[in-house]
């Protein structure tokens, strides 16, 4: 019995040592961090476009950013105008990808509050909803069910993934009802309007440019990413790679965290054991506080950090006076689709591609946003844009 065990242990030892040697050997100085964006996820033209859109003044009412649009090209919707009896309380159907993260939960509440207002005024009748719980197949059949029912006067879709949902959206378009897509896109332009904030490149660049500006050349930056392979997140990272690649910052690497606070804290702690980390770039704000706590617990000064407009992070930022920025993936976009639906059914023009503004929260606006959201729970998003809705603040507090 002893020999095989010794052999096994020896084998394990050898393989561990070998992996250690091979990986540790050649250029461990920068651990080979690639700062060229992956071609699959990087579209140079779109990147330049989004960066430029950040500086364009959006059209529309200034105090209602969810109705603003950047360089809109208006689409004629007179063919969808409902007349006579049809125009009274039309049924609007919404296929939701999921409510599986706090950002979507916040937006979903805002949308429901907006719907109540429109129902009160008679612009919308029944609001029929299906939730696909992040399952593509479920969402495809949800959309098909709306088409088959035949009484949806407008169909709103928040797709769970891009390529897989494209045929389902096309089928919805063919049904004749106006289709409104928002948040993630699909590979077709059959819908009446596609509503989204500027996009992932702008988000990632906002965060990375802030770090480049605030940190001395040669400072070390650690990137924390949630998952590989999700387009909105990959675009953020691709933009950051582009910005960091042109800078003097030393990017230590990136880690996938699944947005799990315990993993984030563990990974950051380990990086701090190896050496100093001066900046943290995150592709989404989930768990930003856990990353900061890793610095606290290790007794190191806070890094310069990019989080998100999630309140737990913004409160920590204010309390500890950290050098930070909160890039925003505008949560108020959840109001726009239902408003667009009622505009379309009234025959009003809407932008074909409805690009909503997407402004990061900076130090200067921090106190203002925290004051406005003082009674909101910590997993709430500052730019949710529902302060003027009748359900405010109870609807968002009590979830």
């Amino acid at each position, binding site marked *: 019995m002893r020999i095989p065990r010794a052999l096994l242990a020896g084998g394990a030892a050898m393989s561990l040592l070998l992996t250690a040697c091979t990986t540790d050997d050649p250029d461990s100085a920068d651990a080979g961090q690639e700062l060229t964006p992956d071609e699959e996820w990087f579209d140079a033209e779109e990147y330049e476009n989004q960066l430029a859109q950040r500086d364009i003044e959006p059209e529309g009412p200034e105090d209602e950013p969810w109705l603003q649009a950047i360089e809109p090209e208006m689409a004629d919707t007179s063919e969808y105008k409902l007349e006579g009896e049809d125009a009274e309380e039309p049924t609007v159907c919404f296929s939701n990808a999921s409510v599986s993260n706090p950002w979507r939960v916040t937006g979903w509440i805002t949308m429901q509050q907006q719907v109540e207002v429109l129902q009160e005024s008679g612009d919308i009748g029944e609001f029929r909803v299906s939730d696909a719980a992040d399952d593509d197949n479920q969402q495809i059949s949800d959309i098909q069910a709306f088409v088959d029912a035949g009484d949806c006067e407008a169909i709103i879709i928040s797709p769970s993934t891009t390529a897989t949902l494209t045929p389902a959206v096309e089928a919805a378009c063919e049904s004749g009802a106006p289709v409104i897509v928002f948040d993630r896109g699909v590979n077709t332009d059959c819908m009446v309007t596609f509503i989204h904030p500027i996009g992932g490149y702008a988000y990632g660049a906002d965060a990375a440019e802030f770090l480049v500006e605030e940190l001395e050349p040669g400072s070390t930056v650690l990137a924390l990413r949630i998952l590989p392979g999700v387009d909105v997140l990959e675009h953020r990272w691709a933009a950051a790679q582009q910005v960091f690649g042109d800078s003097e910052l030393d990017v230590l690497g990136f880690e996938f965290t699944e*947005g799990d606070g315990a993993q*984030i*804290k563990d990974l950051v702690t380990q990086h701090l054991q*190896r050496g100093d980390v001066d900046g943290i770039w995150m592709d989404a704000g989930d768990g930003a506080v856990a990353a900061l706590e890793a610095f606290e617990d290790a007794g190191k000064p806070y890094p310069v950090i990019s989080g998100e407009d999630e309140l737990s992070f913004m409160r920590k930022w204010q309390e500890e006076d950290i050098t930070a920025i909160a890039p925003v993936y505008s949560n108020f976009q959840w109001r726009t689709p239902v408003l667009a639906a009622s505009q379309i059914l009234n025959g009003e023009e809407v932008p074909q591609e409805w690009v909503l503004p997407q402004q990061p929260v900076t130090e200067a606006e921090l106190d203002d946003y925290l004051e406005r959201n003082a009674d909101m729970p910590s997993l709430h998003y500052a730019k949710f844009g529902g302060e003027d809705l009748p359900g405010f603040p109870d609807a968002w507090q009590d979830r």
Partner: protein
Amino acid sequence: MTRTAVPTAPGRIAREAVSRLVGGGSGTVFALLILIFAVIFAINPSFAQPPSMLAFAKQAAPLVILAVGQYFVIVSGELDLSVGSLVGAQVVIAAKLIDGEESRTVPVILLMIAFGALVGLVNGLVTTVLRVPSIITTLGTMLVLYGAIRLWTGGAPTGALSEAFRRPGRGGIEDLPVIGQLPWALLIALAVGAAALALTRSPYGRTLIATGDNDTAAAFSGARVWRVRTTAFVLSSLLATAASILIGGFAGVTAQVGDGLEFMAITAVVLGGVVLGGGRGTVIAAMAGALTVEALFTLFNQLFLPSTIQPTVQGLIIIAAVGYAARQRSTRSP
């Protein structure tokens, strides 16, 4: 398969323990643990300093506690897949009910303990009385908890934990010379380990192992199998509750807390040489298995391997460890 015959004298217990450590399926895990640490130290000498080691201990403590709970269930011949979901549920419940109010900390912790005990009791009774295989029972519990929590919170967690709630997982005895902070989590894990060791040496522990080895024989010799196993499930759920307090304390609330922990715990126990199907293995080795899993992932991190490789490695470990144990058993039993 009569190796777990009940020892009669303390001397024999000690000898049994030593022979298990050195000669049983559990010995390998200690060799592996030492080896992994040696490689980590070689790559990154700063990890050998006491503060780094204690930070590692603090972060590994919840898994060690989960592994102890999983050990009781596995050694009794069952499996508990619900612990990951239970940890997630408990942290979310705590955040929602405490909602940042310090004064609610203790009542909510008591409620969590009661909830944990209830989940364990349901798992145990459904498995033993209704005779639903535990892999199905606990898979069901895992899904029920996962869904119920999302239903209750509207999809994502809300609320906040209090400072007092976070202290066991995050804090410690501060400002000690050389080592800095001595984490509460480490002390709690040590206490749990000592209690578990005492329990396995008690009449209950021996009955538990005998039940896992051969439940018919155990029943004939007077053990109430259903009660023994139900208690094991309750212990597992209670320890998962303890782990959830440490995990919530360590890193706060996120939507993903607890995900995949059941497989981490099973990997740890199996790596510790505890035989699936029950009856063999020591709790100490299961705890060492937990440390080894954590150390291995730390090593991967030190090697800049992507963390997405973790599930693959975990899967390989489970298959290799069980295969190794099976091969060892088949050469031994005739």
